[in-house]
């Protein structure tokens, strides 16, 4: 299903925006460097900025169509917006902020207030003034406020960029819950690879106001990792796997990835769950043969698909069971191991450096899971 169709031209500061893309269910990340026009694009979809021409359709409703002279005002678009700076109304309590759409926008919420509050863990802060909230709490209230406006589409403009790392890690589980439990298509603007890797199903790459690439998140991020530019150590891939076993004594879970199995740390997982892993290229090593006596226990048989050298280093694309890993090693190691496309190797993953998140849960209703804090 197409949740959003965008084909517009317009101005954003210094350069032209000329963008066409579609977004379906799940999270679509608008990904690209700062100042590429991503935020302006979101404003145009929300109706707070006006494109010069083109068409925007969301959930079957035409929001903007220059050919027909259609330009719905923001309050008629049914689009939720989570701003980078939260923008909680400072004169209203958390509760009045959360219910703003109901009492000021006269939008009847189909989601229950209590459910959203529980989903975002805001039970204790309802009577607080926004000024007394932490940055993470503010962003959670902003997300709840947008959800309670009953949007057909949720826009998020770098909702984590004003937070430090600890706060980001506090919010990310909530975003993951919303993705799986709210069932609203989300358009998520970010320039952080790790956020996109963790949340996005689809990635639309924006550069200089234009779409330079788009597709499934795993494919786009893998391609990005091999492309020039960016920090090659931060490049990484997203893998999807299924939990086959858990070991509560060691707080680990065993994940089947293609023919291989890896064991990662994490609580709250159960056999049968589908999880998403983000593996940074800098955390993957390569061995010719399986090794014993290493602290790295995760060794996946794989085949070298591509080697890209840059100076002293090389980024190696490794294929296994239809998925791909990137490994960042020195050019010297690559030669010492005699790596070439087609070589059979073992990819070594450090368990502690892999990020893991649940991506599937029984849909239907916002059942608050155990606190992800």
């Amino acid at each position, binding site marked *: 299903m197409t949740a959003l169709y965008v084909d517009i031209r317009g101005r954003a500061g210094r350069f032209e925006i000329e963008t066409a893309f579609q977004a379906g269910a799940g999270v679509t990340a608008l990904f690209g460097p700062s100042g590429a026009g991503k935020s302006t694009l979101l404003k145009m979809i929300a109706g707070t900025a006006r494109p010069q021409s083109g068409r925007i359709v969301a959930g079957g409703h035409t929001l903007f169509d220059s050919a027909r002279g259609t330009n719905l*005002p923001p309050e008629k678009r049914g689009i*939720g*917006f989570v*701003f980078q700076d939260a*923008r*909680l109304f*400072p004169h209203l309590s958390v509760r009045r902020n959360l219910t703003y759409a109901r009492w*000021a*926008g*006269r939008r009847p919420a189909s989601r229950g207030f209590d459910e959203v509050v529980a989903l975002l863990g805001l039970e204790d802060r309802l009577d607080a003034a926004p000024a007394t909230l932490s940055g993470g709490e503010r962003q959670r209230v902003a997300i709840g406020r947008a959800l309670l406006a009953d949007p057909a589409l949720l826009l998020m403009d770098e909702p984590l960029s004003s937070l430090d790392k600890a706060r980001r890690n506090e919010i990310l589980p909530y975003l993951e819950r919303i993705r799986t439990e709210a069932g609203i298509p989300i358009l998520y603007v970010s320039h952080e690879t790790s956020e996109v890797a963790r949340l996005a199903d689809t990635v639309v790459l924006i550069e200089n106001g234009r779409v330079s690439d788009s597709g499934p998140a795993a494919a786009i991020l893998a391609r990005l990792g091999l492309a020039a530019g960016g920090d090659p150590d931060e490049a990484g891939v997203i893998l999807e796997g299924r939990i086959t076993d858990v070991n509560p004594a060691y707080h680990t879970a065993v994940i089947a990835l293609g023919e291989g199995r890896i064991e990662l740390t994490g609580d709250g997982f159960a056999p049968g769950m589908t999880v998403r892993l983000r593996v940074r290229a800098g955390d993957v090593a390569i061995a010719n043969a399986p090794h014993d006596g290493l602290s790295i226990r995760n060794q996946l048989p794989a085949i070298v698909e591509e080697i890209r050298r840059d100076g002293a280093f090389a980024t190696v694309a490794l294929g296994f069971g239809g998925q791909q890993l990137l490994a960042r090693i020195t050019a010297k190691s690559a030669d010492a191991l005699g790596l070439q496309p087609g070589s059979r190797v073992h990819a070594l993953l450090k368990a502690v450096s892999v990020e893991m998140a649940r991506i599937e849960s029984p849909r239907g209703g916002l059942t608050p899971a155990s606190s992800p804090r």
Partner: protein
Amino acid sequence: MGETELSIILLSARVAFTAILCALVPAFAVAWLLARREFPGKGVVQALVTLPLVLPPVVTGYGLLILFGSKGPLGQLFENLFGISFAFRWTGAALAAGVMAFPLLVRPIRLSLEAMDQGFGEAARTLGASRLTVFFTVTLPLALPGVIAGAVLGFAKALGEFGATITFVSNIPGETQTLSLAIYALLQSPSGDAAALRLIAIAVALALAAIVASEYLARRLTTGGRA
């Protein structure tokens, strides 16, 4: 406090309240235009609004006399349309006070509107609020400290207005003789010093109360305040 003193204070209060109540909405509109909109002639509007502050009050009073006197074009308009006459009436004193207080009302409101993050309005629109609803639920409440500061300042000014009032509506006891005018009249008579001092004490007390009230209100409204 004698009966005449009480009636002087009540008249002054009536004049000042009427002036501020009538001036508040146009002052907010002008402040909003100056803070949020670009339009041709903005400089002229800005100058006109500030003019009563820098012009000799006598000149402003004379201008009012010409425009709003019983023969003046605006005076006749108001007389015909609403049956309101200003000449030598307390309504005229209120008009003079309102005009003189206008710049003091506009300035703090304009500053609070300019300081306000317009992103709040955008956020409210995406939550389903129309422009009008945004105004009443976001813009106005956030501008309230400025509105109150302006109202208190303007009220104090209106209470003490002298030059424009005496020029426009003269000094008629019981009709246009407000606090300042009464003090002035008493000081002109050889035996009026004691009575004048009592009024002066009242004037000082009122001014101090206005300042304390505005500080208190501004603080109350801003704590709980901005994120």
